[in-house]
């Protein structure tokens, strides 16, 4: 019997609400994403629940659409890099030799460049657009998946039942989804959560620098940048998107922690 701490319930509930709100943004947001519906810097009120931003757009609507954009790109980036990183890692662990060497050295080089600097170089050359942002984050994140998945898979590949499967003459996909994946899924799922929150933070940082999601589209980072002047007036409105982002990341981390603990407990039960 595993004791399930309350905190993870709260985190899961919050994430579910956030995901639902983000997915349903076009239907539940009171105003369109880029419509100017009031004066700049209107306070919180019945028409604009969170007030308005520097141009007089409804902050709540911007927040919903911003969360939608950030979460959508981050989720897509984490999923794609999961697939790319894990497939390549398992290929490296299965074939070893030059496949492993080439992939591992490439990952070493990519990881020796600080991620933000790498992204800045790519964005300066290609300009900022959603496909470029997505591609950059996938390239950076898949190296992390690769490192983790490779080290896990190499350990698995040294076990006896792998030898048996090799003698049976099984192919790569058999090893992939029947021999390796079921045994390494727990840490990989945890890594997926961490990578998702990294992607969301990273994207927001780029947007905050003016190099991510481009206006007039909303994004949790670019919203901070757009409204930052209000801070000197003592308004906390510009920090609302940042706080939402932080809460989302904390919630993901709580769930990842809970998941790791649970799978560790199950592992103990089994042995």
């Amino acid at each position: 019997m595993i004791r399930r701490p309350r905190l993870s319930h709260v985190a899961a509930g919050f994430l579910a609400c956030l995901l639902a709100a983000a997915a349903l943004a076009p239907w539940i947001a009171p105003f369109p994403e880029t419509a100017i519906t009031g004066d700049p810097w209107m306070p919180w009120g019945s028409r604009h629940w969170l007030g308005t931003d520097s141009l007089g757009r409804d902050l709540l609507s911007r927040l919903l659409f911003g969360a939608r954009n950030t979460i959508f790109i981050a989720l897509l980036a984490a999923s794609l890099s999961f697939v790319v990183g894990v497939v390549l890692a398992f290929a490296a662990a299965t074939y070893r030799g030059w496949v492993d060497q080439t992939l591992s050295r490439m990952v070493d080089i990519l990881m020796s460049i600080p991620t933000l600097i790498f992204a800045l170089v790519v964005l300066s050359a290609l300009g900022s657009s959603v496909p470029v942002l997505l591609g950059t984050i996938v390239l950076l994140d898949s190296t992390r998946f690769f490192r983790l998945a490779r080290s896990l898979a190499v350990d698995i590949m040294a076990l006896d039942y792998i030898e048996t499967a090799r003698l049976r003459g099984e192919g790569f996909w058999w090893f992939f989804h029947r021999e390796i994946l079921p045994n390494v899924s727990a840490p990989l799922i945890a890594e997926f959560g961490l990578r998702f929150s990294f992607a969301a933070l990273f994207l927001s940082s780029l947007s905050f620098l003016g190099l991510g999601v481009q206006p007039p589209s909303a994004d949790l980072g670019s919203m901070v940048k757009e409204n930052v002047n209000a801070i000197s007036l003592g308004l906390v409105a510009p920090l609302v998107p940042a706080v939402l982002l932080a809460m989302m990341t904390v919630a993901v981390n709580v769930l990842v922690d809970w998941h790791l603990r649970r799978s560790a407990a199950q592992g103990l039960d089994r042995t």
Partner: protein
Amino acid sequence: MLELVVILVRRCAYAALTLLAVSMLIFAGTEVLPGDVAQAVLGQTATPETVAALRKELGLDRPAAVRYMEWIGGALQGNFGKSLANAMPVATLVGERLDKTLILAAAAGLISVPLSLGLGVVAALYRETFIDRMISAVTLTFVSFPEFLIGYALVIVFAVELGWLPALSNLRPDAGVWQWVRALTLPALTLSLVMLAHTMRLTRTAIVNVLSADYIQMSEIKGLTPARIIVRHALPNVIGPLLNIVMLTLAYLVVGVVVVEVVFNYSGMGKLMVDAVTNRDMPLVQACSLLFSTVYVVCNLLADFLAIVANPRLLHPK
């Protein structure tokens, strides 16, 4: 001793190779990709003739390999070409900013290294108690926060509400030491808070590992005082991991400055690079990214090397 030298040389050679590959990647990223620099500078409306003229002037009509050799050759001698935005030598622009970034990173290091080591030690000594959980929870919360949130939250509290410190850290050249300290406090604190969780956790793990070793239990059974156990028995074995952690922190710090510099409008390398990317000023982007990567690789190299010096067992990997 000879083995150590061999390892050092090998690691340095490896780092040099890595940097070479990184420089190629940076160059390829900024030069060979579609829509070359001339087009980017002149914009979509430029006539083919003006683009061709600028390409010739910038030397873009020659093969990429030749231009790479020229670029990296110049870079090794401190010549990074001229900025496309204002025709100033890139080396001058970078030189003015580099020391500011290093000062900020050093200030952040002064705050975050003792703080994270201290918290890590406390968490390890009181592991699995309320204190440990509190430290973990608080630092893990900070690591989930985007840098700009921490930065602006500090600004709202200390600059806007309390008025103790300046919200922006753009210093005049004639600023005195006290002004520097005031201007650097908030950015350095922001960086430290971002960094804290990583280093604190690493420290905690390193110390917990040592404290759970048999010989520490033995010295407890012998009845040594806790202070003596920590200082004489535990510390020598955690020096290596701790030095390693400090170097990794410095590596993070130097790169972490980018967002923080923009938040506080601090004119260092990070802000320079962000502006260069916005203006698509390629020579400047190349120089900044190469410098950032070099500092990062060198810090990691030192971290590796210090770990080996402090723990000779790593000389003979199994």
